[in-house]
């Protein structure tokens, strides 16, 4: 199947999440997706929302602030999901990443997250394996940190809890990872 077939915009919407912990090489994969003009998330909405919360509070997020942040991020994910009407699109993280976020802080999933997880379903979820055995520049330092591994595990667990069966993408060059991902995608129905 050619890339053109995959990208055929005259097909029903197909939504694919690419996620993973920090140091999984997600930025590089999305950078290349943009270069290849494959429809995908621009930037990372959660990051901008995080910065806004921090600026507004004038300090780092604390216990009482985190669920409000989670709700804002959820709203952004839902909006991005609904905005997509036709053809294929890759999402930089998805709604169930919220489970990983909440679990990281020992919070229980809140009703809106569970409801959104039920209503807005992605067609497949790709988890980028950490680059800890991969000769990458700066990421290498962090990939070995215990806490980063924990974040990665919690994100993966969130997708299992949400009823997905993630496909694990081995650590590799971004281009080969994209080829791996595309090879897992079904031919779109016209």
């Amino acid at each position: 199947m050619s890339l053109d077939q995959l990208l055929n915009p005259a097909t029903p919407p197909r939504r694919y999440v690419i996620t993973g912990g920090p140091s999984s090489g997600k930025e590089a994969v999305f950078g290349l997706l943009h270069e290849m003009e494959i429809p995908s998330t621009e930037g990372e909405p959660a990051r901008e929302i995080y910065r806004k919360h921090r600026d507004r509070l004038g300090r780092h997020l604390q216990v009482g602030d985190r669920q409000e942040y989670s709700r804002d991020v959820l709203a952004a994910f839902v909006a991005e999901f609904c905005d997509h009407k036709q053809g294929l699109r890759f999402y930089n993280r998805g709604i169930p990443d919220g489970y990983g976020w909440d679990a990281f802080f020992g919070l229980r999933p809140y009703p809106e997250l569970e409801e959104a997880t039920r209503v807005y379903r992605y067609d497949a979820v790709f988890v980028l394996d950490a680059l800890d055995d991969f000769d990458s520049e700066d990421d290498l330092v962090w990939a070995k940190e215990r806490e980063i591994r924990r974040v990665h595990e919690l994100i993966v667990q969130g997708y299992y809890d949400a009823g997905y069966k993630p496909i694990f993408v081995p650590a590799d060059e971004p281009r080969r990872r994209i080829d791996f991902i595309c090879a897992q995608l079904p031919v779109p129905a016209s």
Partner: protein
Amino acid sequence: MTPSKISPPDQQERPLLELLEEMRAVVRYGLPVHADHAGPHLLALPAVRSRALDPGDRVSLARALEAALREEVDRLQHELAPAARLLLGSDPSTAGARLTVRRAAAAKASGYELHHFRKRIEPKIWSLLVGQLGRAGDVSAVVAPVLHPAHRPLVLPADVFAWEAVEHQQTLASLWGAVYLLRAELLRTAALVSMDAVEDELVAAAASALWRHALVLHATARYQAAYGQVLLHSAADAGPALGPTQIAASAGWTPELTPAQELLLIEVAAPEASLLDFMTVLACAQGGPRLIATWRWALTGRAPSGTGPDQEEP
């Protein structure tokens, strides 16, 4: 540097035989894992507890065990990996099937005769799965931040999870740092007492220890404001969850203070201020002189002339 480690109390060993027997039961019923079929040793594995939404709830632990098994069997790179997936029922072709069906498919895929597979190969698969789960949890022990020599600058990925993980590490490192500095002062004070040092030296050492103790309380309060009463992720480990106060207490014995005195110390402590600033502000605060005297008395067994613990406030 050797990392400091606080073992959760009553942490039990995980006997291999029990784990294998429990894995056998999981394999017998296949995926999904039902809470009634999941043994206690498997549910107590750090890799399982760390994933559970509620480590105190058996159903939640069983779901976490299932997810951990699915992930580990998906990642497994071993000649028996396809057979393990078929036997567990994580492969779509045997999902939900009876054991005899799953076993037959697994035996066929691995090229073994059925009875040989049941008797000889299945136990290897249980062992393989237990080993995978055990290794997956190796990273879950509660330890102080482990330090390594760095050969290049730390550059973080621009990722909210990374920012939060770093902020947590920073808060935790600040707490541990304060604890070690307090420990150093407590040790110095104990040595001076043992040497029967002159009063000025004892007064100075006790003041330094009090200052460091206040900074530990300040760092603990900062951790609690950001993350709550329980150390992040320690709830997932076996045994009672650890809190920042337990880290703070690991510096060594300190004189017992009232909650009001601890609050006063937190208010007066400022990480950027000096020992002199701290003692000046504390000495002028309501209850400050009494606190200083009580602390000094309890820690050194001595108080400067006319300044015993029963001294009246000015």
